[in-house]
């Protein structure tokens, strides 16, 4: 599919590049009769992006191959669905969205290179992409240098803010604090045991969680353990959990390790119906691999569950399944990825322009009322105001909503007192 889009797009683009800025007035004189209501290209695109009278091109940049394909497939699917729906509803400023999909191949330098290709060669108006923090960190200098716009879907550790990025997932404090408050109140939890994979996101998240437990909840962290990515043996740490008997196990283990951890927890006789476990790294996607019977009873804390009962989500889930198959599940990040194209469309319409600078300036305050998670709004710091929710895993691999914050939680990527 990407090849076709490439071919269709490159030739007019190259021609346009050759003609340079002098050609812009000429383009506006091309027939525009079919899109009479659409504003002139010269008016909405002053920086030479891939915008024609009928089309605008965006990039999708995720790993379709390699380790991360497990997680990123859902994001690609969600973004394609959003683009299709936007086109069906008339496109953006009267222009249909075309996308060029590039494969980051789970390799961070490749992400940077493909981002550069999308921005420099293809002149895409925005990039929907990246998943791991490592890939985002690789792409960030590129989108800043070439002044692109990146819509990043994953919940992440925070400590970042850029004019050129909109973070559609939650940053760490937004995701974690409400969940900890809830479990401390609901379960009277005083002692916590942290287990994470050994890299930046779990370490930063646990640091925030530890400060919150110790300073705000006046509880105690009885253990904090990290295992290398891909570790498959958790029996030792499970024994430590048995010894310390924490009120809550708080986990941010990721990837294949996740599956091993819950299977071994179950095998070791720890019953999640009795032992409270709060995870910030397991979505419906992960449960597919873990198996519902191994994780039923665990609590997850994030902003979206497939089972959410609201009109937007009731339209979104069937549309997603219709496009990608009855068996697919939708996790938190998949939903956040779906927001990307929509937020971009709304921002472009608010700014009345495809220019990146105007979009960046217009982003704060943009509201999306049709979000499957419910109403969201972009904050000054380019993160989203969103609710935090706690769900309990069921045998069938879905979450049952247990708690949600009454109001939208303010994103705070540089939390004071938590660093």
């Amino acid at each position: 599919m990407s090849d076709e889009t490439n071919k269709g797009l490159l030739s007019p683009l190259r021609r346009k590049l050759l003609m340079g800025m002098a050609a812009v007035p000429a383009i506006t004189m091309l027939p525009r009769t079919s899109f009479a209501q659409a504003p002139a290209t010269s008016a909405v695109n002053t920086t030479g992006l891939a915008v024609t009278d009928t089309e605008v091109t965006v990039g999708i940049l995720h790993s379709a191959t390699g380790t991360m394909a497990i997680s990123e497939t859902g994001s690609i699917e969600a973004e394609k669905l959003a683009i299709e729906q936007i086109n069906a509803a008339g496109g953006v400023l009267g222009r249909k969205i075309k996308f060029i999909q590039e494969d980051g191949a789970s390799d961070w330098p490749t992400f940077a290179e493909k981002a550069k290709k999308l921005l420099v060669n293809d002149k895409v108006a925005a990039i929907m992409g990246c998943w791991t923090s490592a890939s985002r960190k690789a792409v960030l200098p590129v989108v800043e240098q070439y002044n692109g716009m990146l819509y990043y879907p994953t919940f992440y550790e925070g400590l970042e803010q850029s004019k050129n990025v909109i973070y559609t997932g939650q940053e760490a404090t937004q995701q974690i604090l409400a969940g900890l408050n809830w479990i401390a109140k609901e379960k009277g939890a005083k002692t916590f045991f942290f287990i994470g994979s050994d890299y930046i996101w779990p370490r930063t998240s646990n640091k925030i969680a530890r400060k919150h437990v110790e300073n705000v909840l006046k509880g105690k962290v009885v253990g904090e353990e990290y295992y290398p990515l891909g570790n498959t043996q958790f029996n030792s740490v499970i024994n430590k959990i048995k010894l310390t008997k924490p009120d809550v196990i708080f986990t941010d283990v990721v990837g294949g390790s996740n599956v091993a951890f819950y299977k071994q927890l179950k095998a070791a006789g720890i019953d999640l119906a009795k032992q409270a476990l709060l995870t910030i790294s397991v979505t419906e996607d992960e449960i597919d691999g873990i198996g519902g019977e191994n994780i039923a009873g665990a609590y997850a804390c994030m902003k979206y569950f497939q089972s959410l009962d609201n009109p937007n989500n009731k339209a979104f889930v069937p549309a997603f399944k219709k496009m990608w198959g009855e068996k697919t599940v939708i996790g938190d990040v998949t939903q956040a990825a779906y927001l990307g194209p929509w937020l971009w469309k709304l921002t472009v319409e608010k700014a009345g322009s495809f220019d990146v600078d105007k979009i960046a300036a217009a982003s704060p305050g943009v509201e999306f009322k049709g979000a499957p998670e419910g109403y969201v709004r972009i904050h000054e710091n380019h993160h989203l105001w969103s609710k935090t929710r706690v769900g309990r895993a069921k045998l069938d691999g879905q979450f049952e909503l247990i708690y949600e914050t009454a109001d939208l939680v303010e994103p705070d990527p540089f939390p004071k007192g938590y660093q």
Partner: protein
Amino acid sequence: MFGDYSLGDLGSIFVMQGFAGLILFSVYVLMALGLAIIFGQMGVINMAHGEFMILGAYVTWMTSNLFQTYMPGLFGGYFFLAMILAFLASGALGMLVEWVLIRHLYKRPLDTLLATWGLSLMLQQAYRSVFGAREVGVELPQWMLGSLQVTSSIEVPINGVFVMCLTVLITIAVAYVMYKSRWGRQVRAVVQNRIMAGAVGINTEKVDRYTFGLGCGIAGVAGSAFTMIGSTGPTSGQLYIVDTFLVVVFGGAASLVGTIASAFSISQTQSTLEFFMSGSMAKVLTLLAVVGILMLRPQGLFALKVRK
């Protein structure tokens, strides 16, 4: 760190921790056995070992789906059939790979590293195309879940016991085949001196193919067993490959006893250290110890004396 706990609690934890070490030991032996045959006996550096394991895991997953759909009554016993199918599937693929690829590289052992690494990438992408990029969940029969309550505070995971029994059985079988059977004698003869073995009438090509197939087949069984404790996805094989090589190299390449001894020492060191410090630190210290010992004894713990 132990001040607050009663003696009874501590006793139970130490028993369970000892058991955790034994499970880790079994897992290491099981994943290393196939490679010990391929790398140890044939000198082929098989980087695709993990992918052969995952083939076994996918076969198990398919078998489980088949049983659920067509014979739900027999679901409790599907795992045994799945392991046999996993052995056959991985073994068959192994023999095919040997015929297409490996047999041209026996004189260039370092090139097998590159060739099999490429193979592992191809297999990963093939799994991704066939089974999808997402991990699959292998459902286990009810009796294999949960734990055995030994005393009121000591619990032993059933799947751990299962892996241990399986490891013992397969180790005995491999030892018998390699050291007691006529075919094993041929394999060892080929390893020690390929030309002479050929000269006395051993069909070395056939021996090679079956040896490679056996190694891959055992990898398949290991992969099948690991669906109980780990994940099944296109790249899950990568989780095992480093540890597998570590065990085989540390044990001394051509020695079965060495593999077992090395699996035992690595697993016990790791599980003891894991208990007293964080998992990442335990891994670092274990690896440091292994590197240190290998510097003093490059041939590994046990080395077979072979005329070069």
